[in-house]
């Protein structure tokens, strides 16, 4: 149900911009658009189904936490 | 692009523009043939009057006087065309290279005379009420002005009323309307261009502006948009409006209309262009900005009120747009916002009401809108009765029956009253429609929905342009000078310039200083 809903929304969204991009034959625009749309769809479905998605925040925390703690320690 | 749209576009392309001049067919020298041709063209319509006259005693020079019954003034035709022709004792004198020229210069007593060479111009002349004179042996004709269509007299405006200010409205006749404006602006700089629009109706459309004040860019844009129009008939200025407006699907008017000559005059003086269409008292004003729709001419005529009323109108705009949705949002989502006592009394009123607040609101608004519509279309004497029955009896009974809560009736009434405080009828329409949308938003997301809806509305409004002028100016883009005549109306002597974006040259409108007390010292 949820997946269908997401796909429906994606379809509506694609209906807005895709035909024009297609017609104009701008390959680069089109490919960037499609890649982003795909990422978005995948991400929302994964999130909707509660799959484990690698959290970019974890990476940021991994990189910056020592720095942050160092700064607060200094103060 | 969806398929159906492509088809419809192709269909449009099939018919080429074929409007004003088909192939020119020149007048013949044979009068009988000419007359026959004309008669046939009109399908022997009986209101085409043809009077044949012999000009000389020898009955050699046969002439035909043609006019449309009703369009031309019979009196004028008789006195200024037929009578001089018949009583002409001098007959044909030498010195004029053509007989027709002689008639034109010496005989005809009409005000304006025009040469005709082809059938098409004969038709247009006849149909505009002129009298056409054709003569045997000459492949030309002349048209004498004799327009005399009975039109409504100048009367009081019905849609835009004021207490103080001229009680005069445009009427259906283009000529009278132009005269009304000429009379107000006695300057040769008031320029007028006319063109015919409508393949079949050939309606006269006049563009008026004050040269030197008007924004040339707007004028140019207007011309190009008018050129693009290709339709069979123009019945009202609304036709033109819908075809030349900026944003196709916006519910908000980007072109204003008025039936008051004083408003039109003011618009001209601000550097706007007005568009008069024959056959309707409503003239178009463009470009228009949003704050303008909340102005009334009386703002300027009354001395004491420097904008209090205008603020009131802005408030009523908000109220008429948002009152029911706010009520729904607050009573179904944010009860914590209400004062305890108020909440208890509202809750008591809601006891036993079968519908949720949203349905109640929609129902009441719907009934009210129907009532308003019915009142508009109803015969005037019955209209009042319906209003009374509808508003008073129905409202009272609905409350008594426990179908709606009294508070809801109050909210709907306030909404209705506020909506009437918006001066522009054109603006009331989108507000009315959006009200329902906001109610739906409020019913599903409470205040959050209203805020988001409001932001979307603002986004839409700010993205609009009217002939290149940002719709929300001078609020956004903000212009400090423009504030003198936006939310408040500053004293007249402080409003020294014209609106900035609308008239780009010749900005200074007055240099007068404010009223002064007389110097007491000698």
């Amino acid at each position, binding site marked *: 149900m949820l997946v269908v809903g997401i796909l429906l929304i994606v379809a509506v*969204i694609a209906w807005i*911009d895709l035909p024009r991009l297609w017609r104009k034959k701008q390959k*680069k*625009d089109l490919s*960037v658009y499609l890649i982003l749309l795909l990422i978005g769809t995948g991400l929302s479905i994964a999130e909707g189904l509660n799959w484990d998605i690698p959290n970019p*925040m974890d990476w940021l925390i991994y990189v910056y936490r020592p720095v942050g703690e160092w700064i*607060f320690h200094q103060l | 692009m969806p398929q159906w749209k492509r088809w419809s576009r192709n269909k449009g392309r099939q018919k080429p523009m074929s409007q004003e001049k088909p192939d020119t067919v020149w007048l013949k020298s044979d009068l009988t043939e000419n007359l026959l041709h004309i008669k046939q063209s009109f399908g022997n319509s009986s209101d085409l009057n043809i009077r044949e006259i012999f000009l000389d005693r020898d009955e050699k020079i046969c002439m035909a006087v043609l006019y449309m019954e009703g369009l031309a003034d019979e009196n004028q035709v008789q006195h200024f065309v037929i009578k001089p022709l018949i009583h002409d004792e001098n007959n044909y004198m030498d010195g004029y290279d053509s007989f027709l020229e002689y008639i034109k210069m010496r005989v005809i007593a009409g005000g304006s005379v025009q040469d005709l060479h082809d059938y098409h111009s004969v038709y247009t002349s006849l149909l505009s009420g002129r009298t056409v004179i054709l003569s045997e042996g000459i492949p030309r004709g002349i048209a004498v002005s004799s327009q005399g269509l009975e039109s409504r007299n100048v009367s009081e405006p019905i849609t835009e009323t004021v207490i103080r200010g001229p009680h005069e409205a445009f009427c259906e006749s283009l000529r009278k309307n132009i005269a009304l404006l000429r009379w107000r602006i006695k300057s040769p700089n008031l320029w007028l261009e006319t063109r015919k629009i409508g393949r079949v109706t050939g309606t006269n459309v006049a563009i008026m502006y004050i040269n030197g004040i008007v924004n040339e860019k707007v004028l140019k844009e207007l011309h190009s948009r008018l050129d693009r129009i290709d339709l069979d008939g123009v019945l009202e200025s609304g036709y033109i409006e819908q075809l030349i407006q900026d944003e196709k699907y916006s519910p908000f008017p980007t072109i204003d209309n008025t039936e008051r000559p004083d408003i039109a005059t003011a618009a001209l003086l601000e550097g706007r262009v007005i568009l008069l269409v024959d056959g309707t008292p409503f003239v178009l004003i463009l470009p228009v900005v949003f704050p303008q729709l909340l102005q009334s001419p009386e703002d300027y005529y009354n001395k004491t009120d420097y904008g209090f009323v205008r603020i009131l109108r802005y408030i009523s705009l908000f109220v008429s747009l948002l009152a029911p949705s706010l009520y729904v949002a607050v009573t179904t989502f944010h009860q914590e916002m209400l004062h305890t006592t108020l909440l208890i009394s509202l809750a008591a009123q809601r006891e036993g009401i079968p519908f949720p607040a949203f349905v109640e609101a929609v129902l009441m608004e719907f009934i009210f809108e129907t009532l308003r519509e019915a009142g508009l279309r109803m015969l005037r004497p019955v209209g009042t009765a319906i209003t009374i029955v509808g508003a008073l009896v129905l409202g009272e009974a609905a409350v008594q029956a426990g179908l709606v809560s009294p508070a809801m009736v109050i909210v709907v009434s306030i909404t209705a009253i506020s909506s009437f405080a918006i001066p522009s009828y054109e603006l009331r329409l989108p507000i009315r429609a959006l009200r329902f949308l906001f109610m739906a938003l409020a019913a599903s997301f409470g*205040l*959050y929905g209203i805020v988001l809806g409001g932001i979307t509305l603002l986004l839409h409004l700010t993205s609009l342009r009217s002939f290149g002028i940002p719709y929300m100016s001078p609020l956004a883009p903000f212009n400090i000078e423009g504030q003198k005549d936006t939310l408040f109306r500053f004293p007249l002597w402080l409003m020294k310039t014209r609106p900035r974006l609308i008239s780009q040259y010749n900005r200074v409108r007055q240099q007068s200083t404010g009223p002064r007390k007389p110097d007491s010292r000698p």
Partner: protein
Amino acid sequence: MIERGKISIRQFMVLTLLFVIGDAIILAPSHVIISAKQDGWISAWIGVGEALLLAVMYSLLGKRFPQQTLVEYSEQVWGRWLGKGISFLFITYIFIDCALMTYEAGDFLTIHFLMGTPIEMTISLFLLVVVLATRLGIETIARTSELLYPWVWILFLILIVSLFPQVEMENFQPILAEGFSPILKGNVYFLANVLELVILLMIFPYVNQPGKARKPYVAGMVIGTSVLAVISMMTIAVLGATVASIQQYPTYILAKKISIGDFLERVEAIVAIMWLFTLFMKISICFYASTLGLAQLFRLNDYRPLTFPLGIIAVALSLVLIPNPAFFNYTHTIWFPYSATFALLLPVLTLVLSAVRKRWFPIKKGM
């Protein structure tokens, strides 16, 4: 240029101001008060000074490249591929910021306003409007901000004036009880908000008088941070540091305290609405900047088609980034160093490098 719109100096000022106030108006007080307690207002006012310096630095950068956005000139300054990489990281920074703020909006609304409505819905609806704004372009965003601007002031003034009777100066005492250390910590939290202003470098070139963008920028930044400082002061003065520090959204609680006579009470919606306005402006600008930046990065013809796909990603991302509210508090520690990378390190290095390149290796045209 992808964006043809131009905004006026005043509009730029308004944008900057609303951007600074943004989400901070409801969060900043809690950040500074948690570590600096009753001295939080000092942290905030120090932050105003720092904002001034930052604004000057950013506008120097903007002045050096008056026709280009940060994404465009980083390619020139850093070289093609390195520049692209940096730009991409910068865009992700903006985008993550955008997603975080979207989460804030959803979180606040579900806690205080729309109990029971799933956070996905509130977020989607919000981003729908943001996407719409972005599609309409910078001109429309700027004009809308101009229309919202007076409302923000009016609501802010109502809030401040109506709380005046409840100010208790004792709440500020003692001053500097714990020394400067907590104040500086509070200041770091405050600064993390201000540093996001670097995002406006993506809009710098669209000011219609490029030479004059500096003044409104500085003015907007200083006035905006001052508003935040005043709100922080009010929070301390009215609620006291104790109550304020246990609240997640102290400004909202502050508004609950308003009670004048019997008629002006229960008006916390004022704060919520003001916050929705400023937050909307900030998210729109961030979203606009990231879509525009992405389009510029890939040299696309138009950024508009990217808006909807990015919108979906933003909705999903905001839910992925913050699996639970505790996580959200967690992010505060890393947010300052993360922001600082792009808001301090990147501009400074870019400035230096561009100066160096101009001196010794003049940039070739058409690079």
